[in-house]
């Protein structure tokens, strides 16, 4: 067996050192009646590398890869070009096969990377401090809600109707168990978000207001007025971002008064991978909130010889020390995805991120204009970055399904995202990135013309 170095001779020698006559002697504490006497029946046996690869390749071929389609899906997961060097670096064994940096003397590589990552995220979000990452954007969103409860000691949560429905569902699910009161809302297909309606729902009992930027329909709005309204009632503003590339083009949430900024980091460096693993980003604007943050934090210090070095710090917030009083039960971070993000962000730099954002927006504007010329189609948004909502005048789910036959992945239908809102069913979210060619846009436009005719 190729992953098992022991030979039978080794095993015999080791058993005699132990003083056992057989391997079974080492399992004496397992009650006899519970012990399996051989490999579980009905399951395949050992297989060669070649055979396994063949099997998995066959399964992979049953999926339509984005690269083989005209591709427009977004809604919280975006397809961007990831430079080849990113994947090379994350496959270096010293990063890939290391553990959480609990022994800092021999983990400075991971620790310095995390310190750089935290600094990059904090700047991108316009915040003072970012943590070393969470599972994904949706769980980071719930953690932010929980943190707002600890900071404000209040339990009423106001969710924007234009928050990603999966994120809203995660918050609602967790709130059932923590007895937080959720003031949710339905999304409405308006060209701009209903900010006044949102603000009117904030009251003195509110711990936080959760707003997505750009929102699930792709729209942008000034966050400062929401921040002011929340702060006026003693609530925190939590801003969710699912497309970090957008922050190369628009003002960051932290600069507009958001108290906690969370989001999905997948766009930078991490592929689509059918939804995971992704990268939860989490940052706070005010450094005094650091001790209420969930997740790992890496900090700078010096070693015994006076050299600069990095360690995990403020660990007393965490489960391995505080146990049932911890700020979260989270133990892992999304380390390798954080590395991919950090490497890609370093390759981009300020200049590259801004150029990438500009190119995404330029192509999205072209696409919106072209698609708006399809008879029966209109663009909902007054504003957008690289994703916008089309109204098709018919159930978008059906249209999306039909177009897959021509290898067109036309976007994400609002019917799939909001299954119980028939008023949204003609909405189609279309995402356009630097990987979308003008030919792809033309392909989609022509196909829509055909289907909607």
């Amino acid at each position, binding site marked *: 067996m190729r992953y098992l170095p022991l030979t039978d001779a080794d095993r015999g020698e080791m058993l005699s050192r132990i003083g056992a006559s057989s391997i079974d002697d080492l399992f004496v504490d397992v009650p006899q009646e519970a012990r399996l006497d051989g490999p579980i029946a009905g399951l395949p046996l050992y297989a060669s590398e070649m055979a396994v690869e063949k099997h998995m390749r066959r399964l992979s071929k049953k999926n339509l890869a984005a690269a083989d389609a005209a591709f427009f899906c977004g809604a919280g997961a975006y397809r961007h070009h990831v430079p080849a060097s990113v994947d090379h670096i994350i496959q270096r064994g010293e990063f890939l096969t290391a553990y959480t940096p609990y022994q800092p003397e021999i983990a400075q590589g991971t620790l310095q990377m995390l310190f750089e990552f935290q600094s990059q995220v904090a700047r991108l979000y316009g915040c003072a401090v970012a943590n070393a990452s969470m599972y994904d954007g949706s769980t980071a969103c719930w953690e932010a809600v929980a943190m707002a409860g600890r900071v404000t000691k209040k339990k009423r949560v106001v969710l924007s109707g234009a928050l990603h429905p999966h994120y809203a569902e995660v918050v609602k699910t967790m709130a059932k168990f923590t007895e937080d009161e959720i003031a949710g809302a339905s999304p409405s297909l308006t060209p701009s978000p209903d900010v006044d309606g949102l603000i009117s729902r904030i009251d003195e009992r509110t711990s936080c207001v959760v707003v997505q930027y750009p929102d699930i329909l792709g729209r942008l709005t000034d966050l400062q007025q929401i921040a002011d309204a929340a702060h006026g009632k003693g609530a925190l503003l939590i801003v969710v971002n699912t497309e970090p590339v957008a922050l190369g083009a628009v003002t960051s949430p932290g600069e507009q008064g958001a108290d906690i900024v969370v989001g999905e980091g997948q766009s930078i460096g991490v592929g689509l991978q059918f939804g995971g693993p992704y990268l939860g980003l989490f940052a706070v604007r005010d450094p005094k909130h650091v*001790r209420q943050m969930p997740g790992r934090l890496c900090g700078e210090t010096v070693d015994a010889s006076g050299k600069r070095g990095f360690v995990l710090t403020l*660990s*007393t917030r965490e489960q391995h*020390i*505080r146990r049932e*009083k911890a700020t979260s039960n989270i133990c892992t971070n999304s380390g390798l995805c954080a590395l991919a993000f950090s490497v890609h962000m370093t390759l981009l730099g300020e200049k590259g991120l801004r150029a990438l954002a500009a190119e995404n927006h330029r192509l999205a504007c072209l696409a919106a204009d072209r698609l708006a010329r399809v008879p029966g189609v209109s663009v909902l948004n007054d504003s957008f970055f690289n994703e916008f909502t089309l109204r098709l005048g018919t159930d978008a789910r059906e249209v999306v399904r039909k177009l897959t036959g021509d290898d067109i992945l036309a976007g994400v239908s609002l019917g799939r995202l909001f299954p119980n809102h028939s008023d949204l069913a003609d909405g189609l979210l279309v995402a356009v990135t630097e990987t979308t060619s003008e030919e792809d846009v033309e392909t989609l436009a022509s196909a829509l013309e055909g289907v909607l005719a």
Partner: protein
Amino acid sequence: MARYFTEEHEWIDVEGDTATVGITDYAQEQLGDIVFVELPEVGATVDKGKDAAVVESVKAASDVYAPISGEVVETNASLDDDPSLVNSSPEDDGWFFKLTIADKGQLDGLMDQAAYKSFCDGL
């Protein structure tokens, strides 16, 4: 002014109706380098035997219990900037909070300096 001690290694200075609370030299020695102290809010009511503050070292967080009940009237702001005061001056500059004494009867049964010393010697 009288100073009392608890088995949880806190000291209490009583002056009139006000008590000042901190942790003892023995406690700071056990905890090691103190990196953070979380103090109650001024105006909060604390109950005897219940959590009132948290003192943290790098690898541990320990609750500090209120030795008597009362209302917190002042906390030691110096600890925010310099938690190491708890190590360097635990029974003086490193005090935690002051509270109004709700019930002087609760002081009965606490130890004096000599009793606390022999209590620690026995540990």
